């Protein structure tokens, strides 16, 4: 089974500070994704990647950057954190076989921006 590991599990940041959320997957999946989960909105796609060096905007990319330095690692970066970015963030990976892929999720990172 795919292993997707997120760090940290919990993070408290101050408004205006920089936050980096990390994700590592060990199954050599091509595609990786960052979602946030909020009550009333479900999970919404922020950024995704097709492979090392690739980052693409999802449905709600504003205020976020992403970095995919290697097949295994995908980071989500908040350059200037705001309280509206308080949420639970999930990373996922998928095989990326022409769109027919099962997604495997990490355990989530709970971010609080004060």
């Amino acid at each position, binding site marked *: 089974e795919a292993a997707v590991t997120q760090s940290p599990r919990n993070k408290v940041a101050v408004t205006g500070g920089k936050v980096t959320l990390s994700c590592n997957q060990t199954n050599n999946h091509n595609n990786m994704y960052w*979602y946030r989960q909020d009550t009333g909105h479900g*999970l919404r796609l922020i950024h*995704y990647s097709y492979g090392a060096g690739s980052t693409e905007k999802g449905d709600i990319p504003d205020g976020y950057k992403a970095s995919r330095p290697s097949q295994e690692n995908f980071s989500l970066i908040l350059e200037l954190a705001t309280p509206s970015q308080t949420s639970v963030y999930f990373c996922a990976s998928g095989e990326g076989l022409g769109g027919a892929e099962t997604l495997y999720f990490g355990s989530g990172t709970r971010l609080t921006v004060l």
Partner: protein
Amino acid sequence: GDQVEQSPSALSLHEGTSSALRCNFTTTTRSVQWFRQNSRGSLINLFYLASGTKENGRLKSAFDSKELYSTLHIRDAQLEDSGTYFCAAEHYAQGLTFGLGTRVSVFP
């Protein structure tokens, strides 16, 4: 969100009973995935369907791409089936669009 409508929003089941969850799609959907989120927040993939039906133990899912809906049946509900169930639609852009979830509570 708007493109994936899940119902009901909450469901209470006695142990041993059966019920169904439903997702309606407002646009053409290439495939659907069902996930369960447990009390710790972990999301577990239950099914991936591009068409037809799949069964895994007491869970069975169906996807009708023409009629734009998918169902998830829970048979002989057990306490460990409690959690929030999400369906997610794969459209023709990358990534999944999630519904808002159905909170399932199974009690003795």
